[in-house]
């Protein structure tokens, strides 16, 4: 009985409570997108050509887009695509950044100089043209889901440079820490020292980089659509839905078009709460 009470009290600590709420919200969003087929009455691709740009109704909860497709269904399926792939790409780029930037800062000396100039070079490359070349290499007949997965993979592989720079700087300040000298003096080997002793100390930086990347990648995916990369018709994604907001007068008249933005803010906010609270070491 006492034990149970303590757990209850623990959970009701402000940090914990916020974390629980955020987790529940995320779980609900994830479930809704997973079971989109059951929740949304229509398919995401079916065009109701007699009801284009319709306002919300019982039939179309968020109205229809300019091809008469159910916005609600598209939002749910788009969530599935973006919510799965954007964090995956963010994870990939953050890991790469941690590895490259972290190692550079950790090894110091000429390695650090090489990596720093490497990052500068990487950032100055004409990515637009390289991405165009990447598109040219892709076969034309790729399924929409493959195409979007490749896009996020590319984003993940290309997005490491800026965070790597920040992580390198962060690592640099840590490498002279006493605890690392102490660990080294205990005979702990180089890579383990890096991964087990140094990286955990970079966690706040890594987490910040991670959740900053998520909305960035979601928006980049939308912009890459202009290059023929990214999600292709008829598959929806948040990015594609956000692109519709370019037309701001239409948004003012049809505020329900903002639903993807609201969802994006909620999801990124919740992710942040969950990750930050977990980061706090329990006292």
């Amino acid at each position, binding site marked *: 009985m006492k034990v149970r009470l303590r757990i209850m009290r623990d959970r009701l600590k402000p940090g914990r409570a916020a974390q629980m709420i955020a987790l529940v919200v995320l779980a609900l969003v994830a479930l809704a997108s997973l079971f989109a087929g059951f929740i949304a009455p229509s398919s995401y*691709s*079916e*065009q109701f*050509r007699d009801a*284009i740009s319709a306002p919300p109704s019982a039939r179309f909860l968020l109205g229809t887009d*300019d*091809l*008469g497709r159910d916005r609600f269904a598209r939002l749910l399926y788009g969530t599935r695509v973006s919510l799965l792939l954007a964090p995956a790409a963010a994870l990939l780029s953050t890991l790469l950044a941690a590895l490259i930037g972290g190692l550079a800062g950790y090894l110091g000396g000429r390695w650090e100089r090489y990596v720093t100039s490497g990052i500068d070079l990487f950032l100055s490359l004409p990515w*637009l043209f390289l991405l*165009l070349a990447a*598109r*040219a290499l892709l076969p*034309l*007949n*790729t*399924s*929409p889901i493959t195409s979007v997965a490749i896009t996020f993979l590319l984003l993940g592989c290309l997005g490491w440079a800026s965070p790597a720079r920040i992580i390198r700087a962060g690592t640099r300040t840590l490498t002279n820490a006493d605890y690392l000298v102490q660990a080294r003096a205990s005979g702990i080997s180089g890579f383990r020292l890096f991964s087990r002793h140094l990286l955990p100390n970079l966690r706040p930086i890594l987490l910040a980089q991670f959740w900053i990347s998520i909305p960035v990648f979601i*928006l*980049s995916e939308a*912009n890459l*659509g*202009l*290059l*023929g990369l990214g999600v*292709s*018709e*008829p598959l929806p994604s948040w990015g594609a839905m956000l692109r519709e907001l*370019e*037309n*701001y*007068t*239409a948004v003012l008249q049809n505020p329900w078009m903002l639903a993807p933005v609201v969802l994006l803010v909620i999801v990124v906010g919740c992710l942040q709460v969950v990750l930050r609270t977990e980061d706090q070491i329990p006292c």
Partner: protein
Amino acid sequence: MLKYSLDGVPLLTRGATLCRVHDSPARQQGDTSRVVIFATALLFALTLTAQSTNELRFCLRGDPKTFNPLLVEDENSETVLYLTGGVLVRLNRYTQELEGELATKWKVSENGRRIDFELRPNVLFSDGTPFTCEDVASTVRQLMDPAVHSPQADAFRSANGPTESKCTGPSSVMARFPAPVASLAARFDQVGIMSARSAHKESAVLGPFTVAEYKPGTYLLLRRNPNYWKHDSNGKPLPYLDSLRLDIQQNRESELLRFRRGELDIVNKLDPEMYDRLTAEMPHAVVDAGPSLDWEVVFFNQVAGAPLPEYKRRWFRSDEFRRAISDAINREDICRVVYRGHARPAAGPVSVSNRFWLNAALKAPAYSVNTAQARLQRDGFHRSGDALFDRDGHKVEFSMITNAGNKLHERTLALIQQDLAKLGIQLNIVVLDFPSLIERISRSFNYESVLMAFTNVDLDPSDQMNIWLSSGAQHQWNPNQKAPETQWEAEIDKLMQAQAAAPDSKQRKAYFDKVQEIVAEKAPMLFLVNPNALSAVSANLKNVTPALLRPQIYWNVERLAIGSKLVSQR
């Protein structure tokens, strides 16, 4: 000349496409750009009070590439040429009739090789020098000089050989071309006459306006030509307007915004969505001039050496397959859903607006899944479950590419995708940047099918020569053939050459009617719709009679006038 078009906006240059792409990731910076727009708007409002009120203002989409009337290739230079250049004859954009300008009379002879002009007397260039037959002769010589590389010369050069042009009297001039030129007189609509003697060269013009100021990337100011020869019926010298201010602005949203504020008098090309938005606010300002001459077409890769699987090449080379696709596309829905009613289903290469050359017997294919299925069945395709298979059991799936950044195209493709799904065909939509698209359809031939727009500025079928001749570089589905690969292509070749050589236009029309019939039957290109020419005109602008042909609103620029500025815009 028939030109590729991006997003239905005529003649956007390739540079502009790249800019659009560069532009888009920065769209999140909307706030700053809006501040900039606001600041410029404010600036314009201030200058407005200071300047003469008799000024017409509209936007160019980019800088004109040249002021030389013989080197015009892009739309912006074309606009400048139209406003400043004096021509011998002009195609009246409204009546679609040819009218004399600097020439009072003309006569075509020698089967369309030779033309004689009688020139208008007492005409002065804008710099005050007199206009003579020598100016015309020298302009024609320069036009046809291979070293000049004039894009306009292509229309006159149906064979190699020398061109002769000389004065035949004090106010008459002749030109003889190496081979007959179809509708020879009408070709001179595109030839701005240059002074043979004036030291000012390009700035000495015969048109209603002259270039007064040019700030690249910002604006172009044209002032009325004080020596312009035309007068109105009351004897008042034309043009009425004192000046034209052409602001160089690529962003269409801000163009529209400035129009709504009354800072612009004309928006030359509106997309259907903007048109509807503007209609709600300013119902009297919008102009829908009806179906334009522009094409929205789909074609399949039929190139022999293209990197395609053999079975796919077989589909694309099958008339029945192409016609089945054509029948399965719901053109009415494209007009209604994508173009919001501002487009007309197209029957073939000639728009309904091209009254003379249209083969009225041809109708746009009626949307019918059944007809399409019957055609596919005849061609050995069969349905199994949700998918369609060819006679060898290959699942029918292919890609269709289009240029990125064009919402109309993307939406059209989404509709086609669902239409074709009803046949069991899986269509993969691929959006590519414009240069890659051109690379694929004209060099690497690494594509399966494409949806794209062509801008058409000319009524005459000779303008489409390059598309229909099997040897042509723009014979898109299978260009540059050494000898026609199919019988019907051979026949089109023959008919196109025949119509070009025929002296009389009735006979030419008969030939071209036949071409239109073959194109409808063989469907090498699926003509989807002719989008309407949509524009917006301020209520202050007087004497506007919108025409279908470009420039739709200011084709009669010398007669346009600005009403009282005191009249409120809204």
